[in-house]
């Protein structure tokens, strides 16, 4: 479904991604792990059009999307969430998700129509809110949500666009142990209906839910394979799992 070939990216001569290649199959949950600063978020940024890669190619469903703009990728069915909350702080939870749902309409920027009654936007928005468990906070301003709920809204925005590939950047980051339990449960439910690439630092969780794991260290792939294989991999243990 997604194929990344020999991706390279440098910031002021510092190599952040070095010749990185991997592929994601339809329906799988691919986890990306690696120490802080390994280049995981940068990888997401390069795939999703925030930065253009220096070298390499990205293909999505056999279409070359190297360096494509975020809005183009979104319309192809690729959605991402952000490690640092990146939603609309001063809009309500409902309005946040509504914007994502509305984006799938042909007349999403029509002037002579009303929302939210247009073309089932309201129903679909409530559906997404239900899925992420925020329907009771629908009318609350996003900035007034608890941090844990904000992390859910961050995913809700990506979900609202009805993606076929969902890229989640550390959805549990900064969450309390208790909060991350419901997040983990949400991701497990999502993985049944959509292909997911998940950046996550909770190794236990990753080992449990993922079909395949990609390990990055200093922008290079040091291992890739099913959880059991990764657990046994010596290099992974040395640079990453060693501390466990």
């Amino acid at each position, binding site marked *: 479904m997604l194929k990344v070939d020999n991706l390279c990216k440098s910031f002021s001569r510092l190599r952040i991604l070095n010749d990185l290649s991997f592929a994601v199959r339809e329906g799988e949950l691919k986890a990306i792990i690696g120490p802080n600063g390994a280049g995981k978020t940068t990888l997401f940024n390069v795939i*999703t059009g925030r930065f253009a890669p220096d070298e390499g190619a990205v293909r999505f469903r056999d279409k070359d999307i190297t360096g494509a*703009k*975020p*809005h183009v990728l*979104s*319309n192809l069915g690729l*959605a*991402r969430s952000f490690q640092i909350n*990146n*939603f*609309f*702080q*001063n*809009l309500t939870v409902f*309005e946040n998700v*509504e*914007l*994502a749902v*509305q*984006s*799938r*309409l042909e*007349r*999403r*920027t*029509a*002037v*002579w*129509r*009303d*929302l939210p009654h*247009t073309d089932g936007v309201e129903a679909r928005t409530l559906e997404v809110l239900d899925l992420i468990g925020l329907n009771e906070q629908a009318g609350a301003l996003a900035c007034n949500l608890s941090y844990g709920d904000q992390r859910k809204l961050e995913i809700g*925005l990506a979900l*609202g*666009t009805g993606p076929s590939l969902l890229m989640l950047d550390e959805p549990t980051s900064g969450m309390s142990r208790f909060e991350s339990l419901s997040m983990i449960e949400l991701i497990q439910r999502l993985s049944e209906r959509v292909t997911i690439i998940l950046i996550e630092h909770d190794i236990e969780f990753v080992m449990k839910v993922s079909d395949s794991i990609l390990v990055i260290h200093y922008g290079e792939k040091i291992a890739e394979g099913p959880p059991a294989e990764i657990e046994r991999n010596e290099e992974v243990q040395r640079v990453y799992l060693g501390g466990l």
Partner: protein
Amino acid sequence: MTVIIKKYYLLLILAALVLLPLASPALFSDYYLDLFTKILIFGIMLLGYDILAGYTGLVSLGHALFFGLGGYCAAFTINHFSSNLAPVLAVALIVSTAIGLFVGFFSTQTKDIFFVFLTLAFAQFFYLAAFNMTGITGGDNGITIAKATIGIPSLWTTKIPRPYGFYYLALVFFVLSFAICRRVINSPFGKVLVAIRENEERVSYLGYSIRKVKIKSYMISVWLATVAGVLFAAYQDFVSPGMLHWALSGDLILMSVLGGMGTLVGPVLGGAIIILLGDELSSLTENWMIFIGGFFVLMIIFAPKGVLGVLSNIRWFRNHDA
């Protein structure tokens, strides 16, 4: 009673505006009718400007360009082609659409301070052109315009009577503009505008083409500024480079911020306050801008949401649907 007033306050304001001329000259002189006509004409431009600056978050410092463009188009069309307001508006809107698309195309590639200065630069170009091409524009002396007319040619036409005719003409255009802008902000498009103001990057990650939306928003403000410029020039029978000057663009920002950006009603209120206050103060002292400036500074410090923000904090005004 208060419930009724709250619910229908826009209609009540409209009724007051319709009936206002009846009070002249008994309660106040025609001079104030003139001020109100100007407030309505500026209001048209401020409504459009609020869509761009208040809702989309794109603060232009070059919007006088389209006000002046409307004025000069009116001057040329009325003096050389037809005095009828309908073709005058059509010509002005066609010209401003072409120039608006050109300026908008380049300006919307930038944002923040770069947008401010690029729009300013384009406007200054036209200002200097109008100022220096004395053969065509009369330079600093401007152009005197023949009396504009309304009606259907060969059936019935009339010179727009003053002061009442112009007042009601401005009122009709103002109400139309207000209805259009209300429609815009309540539409799917309007929601995307606010989202762009709040977090442009995420909007593009949701699949919207930011550029197209921004240009549309820009064009709405361009058209309303043009209409205002046509009406203003026709009303004054005169156009000069002053209508293109950046100080006028600055006034738009001042009025919008003072009244409360992103509320439609606020900027119009701000415009009314500045125009009325400026008029009162200028009859008292030459340095009236100092007082306006001081007032502005105090507002920014103590009421950053503008006059409308202050009003909506007073309990009586709450719960209306502005």
